[in-house]
């Protein structure tokens, strides 16, 4: 079920009202049923995969908790292996097979891996990682093994974050299912406002920009120059609004029922370096890789060489997590490389800034850093969005084609025409003003919580903003060409 669907408009109030109406000891069951309904709205049969993962890690958790030493470690490894095997079969088997077949062809070997005709279950990587974090935390002793099978199932299946995160840790979420949440006006209202804001980002901005991105990426070789740059920039904003919009709706939906989910985005486009960017973007995944891959590999404790290696491994795996395609692997590796290079050149960059006098103009230096970071991110997402490396290479090498024509008005007229980008002037204008609205909110957020800022304003100001938000969602939302959330595919 999509958050931006008519079905969810009925689902959410029914589930939330039912949750508060039921006695506390039945609420977990209500949420579990609701989560099953939510997930089965996509492909019902795939709930069995979730059940398999849940059963494996539920019993693994119990076994790990009551074992010691090598046995404990064996249970952990078995559990991780079994959980990852499910992920591998559904997500990576065909990718692996294709690569084996390619190698086999190169060496004229009479060997081929037959592809499996499987559809990737929605959100598989998300709930797999959430399950993995449970067994690891039980192994580390940070979390008691959950004995209540229903509550554990709910931890994996909790509908707001089931298909696209945030990827929660058991220490943050599991105990909340035992808490008795009362209906509190302010909390529910805040949850609804957050959901509305997320919906605005999704249906007004992301789905509108998706039209341009999809038009251009449908045949990138038909374009050069400005449309390719526009598609890259728009995709960067689209994926942010799509995913952070989903996260806001997930956090808001959970908040309305009294649950606290972790923040997933903190204004990533205000980052001044790629390393800072990854502390603000998809925080639940970045911190997952940090806690369960980077630090166990040694992090920065084993010298610069090993740290570089650890970083690259972490980012390549993070890229692979996103999808079974070399474009994702290379995208992940590129981000790792940018962090390594950024760290290695920090002293030189500071020296250049001093030479240029930028130390005396910190705001300008800040702006330049933000612009460069954003540009590097756009470069990365060009690879991320491309279907193959040859397509990505074409786009990157043709970004500035026809540069000499950029001073010609007719060039822009053609480059930004409906025929070229798939959006007409009025829609582009709406996209432009929506992004400005988004940035205004970000600017306010940089000075503190927008909720606190609003609370101090006259009711007319607050209600005008609520009215405009609701009005914009209904009137300027894209409902005829509904796009699934990008991260569902992961």
């Amino acid at each position, binding site marked *: 079920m999509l958050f931006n669907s008519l079905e969810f408009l009925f689902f959410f109030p029914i589930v939330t009202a039912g949750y508060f109406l039921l006695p506390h000891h039945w609420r977990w069951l209500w949420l579990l049923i609701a989560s099953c309904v939510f997930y089965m709205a996509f492909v019902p049969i795939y709930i069995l995969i979730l059940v398999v993962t849940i059963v494996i890690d539920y019993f693994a958790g119990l076994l790990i908790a009551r074992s010691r030493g090598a046995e404990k470690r064996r249970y952990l490894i078995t559990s991780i292996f079994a959980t990852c095997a499910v992920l591998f079969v559904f997500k990576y088997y065909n990718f692996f097979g294709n690569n084996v077949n390619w190698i086999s062809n190169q060496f004229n070997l009479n060997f081929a891996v037959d592809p499996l005709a499987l559809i990737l279950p929605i959100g598989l990587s998300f709930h797999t990682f959430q399950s993995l974090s449970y067994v690891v935390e039980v192994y580390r002793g940070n979390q008691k093994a959950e004995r209540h099978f229903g509550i554990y199932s709910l931890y994996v299946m909790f509908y707001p974050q089931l298909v696209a995160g945030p990827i929660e840790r058991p220490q943050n979420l599991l105990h909340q299912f035992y808490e008795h949440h009362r*209906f509190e006006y302010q909390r529910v209202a805040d949850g609804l406002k957050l959901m509305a804001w997320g919906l605005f980002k999704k249906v007004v901005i992301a789905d509108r920009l998706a039209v341009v991105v999809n038009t251009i990426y449908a045949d990138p070789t038909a374009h050069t120059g400005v449309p390719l740059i526009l598609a890259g920039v728009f995709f960067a904003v689209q994926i942010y609004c799509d995913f952070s919009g989903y996260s806001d709706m997930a956090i808001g939906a959970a908040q309305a029922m009294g649950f606290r989910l972790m923040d997933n985005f903190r204004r990533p486009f205000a980052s001044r370096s790629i390393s800072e960017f990854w502390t603000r973007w998809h925080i639940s995944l970045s911190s997952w890789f940090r806690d369960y891959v980077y630090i166990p590999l040694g992090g920065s404790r084993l010298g610069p060489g090993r740290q570089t290696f650890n970083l690259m491994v972490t980012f390549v795996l993070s890229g692979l997590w996103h999808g079974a395609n070399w474009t994702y692997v290379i995208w992940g590796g590129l981000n790792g490389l940018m962090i390594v290079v950024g760290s290695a050149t920090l002293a030189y960059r500071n020296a250049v800034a001093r030479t240029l006098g930028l130390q005396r103009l910190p705001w300008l230096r800040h702006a330049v850093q933000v612009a460069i970071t954003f540009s590097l991110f756009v470069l990365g997402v060009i690879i991320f969005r491309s279907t193959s490396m040859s397509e990505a290479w074409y786009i990157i090498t043709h970004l500035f084609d026809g540069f000499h024509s950029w001073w010609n008005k007719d060039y822009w007229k053609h480059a930004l025409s409906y025929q070229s980008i798939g959006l007409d002037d009025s829609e582009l204008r709406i996209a432009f003003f929506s992004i400005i609205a988004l940035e205004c909110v970000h600017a306010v957020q940089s000075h503190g919580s927008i909720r606190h800022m609003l609370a101090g304003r006259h009711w007319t100001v607050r209600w005008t903003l609520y009215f405009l938000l*609701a009005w914009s969602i209904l009137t300027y939302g894209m409902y005829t060409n509904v796009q699934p959330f990008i991260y569902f595919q992961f």
Partner: protein
Amino acid sequence: MRASPDVTKLLGRVALLSALVLGSFGVLYFGPFPYKHQLAMLIDKRVMLNSRPAPRVILVGGSGLFFGVDSELLTQSLGVRVVNMGVFGGLGILAPLEVIRPHIRHGDIVVLVPEYALLFTSLSPFQKDYYRWFLAVDPKAAWRLYYSHEKPRVLMGDFLLLVRDKVAALFAIPIKGNHSLARNGYMRYLQVVNRYGDGSEEIRPSPPENLVGRNTIYQHDALKPEVIEQLNDVARRLEERGARVVLTFGVYPEGEYDLSRKVIDVTAERLRSEGQFTVLGRPQDFLYPYSAFSDTVNHVQAPARAARTRRLAELLAEAGVGSPGTAAGESGQTH
């Protein structure tokens, strides 16, 4: 969950916000604010139709009529008030008729002028970018239209698009689309429609060679049986309201007619033999050289427009419409 003060407060505020939003939609939809879109001329044309007393000659078709008839001359020739309801062929002919039908009065003569492209494809195409203008004219008729196309869910989205169009007009934000009826009259429909409903500004002609060989050559059996059934049905329903229904042919370049002559002639014969309405003239009555057209094979320039109007007047007179030579008093307001 008892109805605690918190619940009441939340429900009250959600209801208030919903009421404010829905109320604003209502004010915009029903309020007397203009739309800045040329298809909004449908609204004005309906007002124009209502302001003219019966009997009237009501021309129904696409932009070939909008730009292709001198209704003032036709009024003078017939002595009957003419209202040109032609707007845009992409809307089809059945949908505009559905909107017009409640306003048809006893004694009216409804002249159907479907363009060939409509006859040979569908009289009722569902054009998602344009259909909302029927909703702007008449919600009840629009509901029937959307429902008949199995698109009732689209109606809600189109309602919101209309609200958007009105906001854009209020803030004078120009809406540019990719489909313009009049290159020089875009967004200025209030100025380009005269008091009879004709487009009153000329389209800049393109070189005739732009029209040659760029149009559909109609194939054998291009006219589908359901098209005649639909025309018969609409004629019957209009006649139930006391109107007389006649059909005539659209303008077409001679060269294009030669390419599709057989199909067009057979179609004319079938319409005459199977149609339960009067068919006026023959396709050849409205053929002109390429040079008489402007930007498409449906849009004629002034000399051909005058010739077409005279021929149409003759055919209507032969069919017993009006009293040629006695001009009717034009009681309608300048639009």
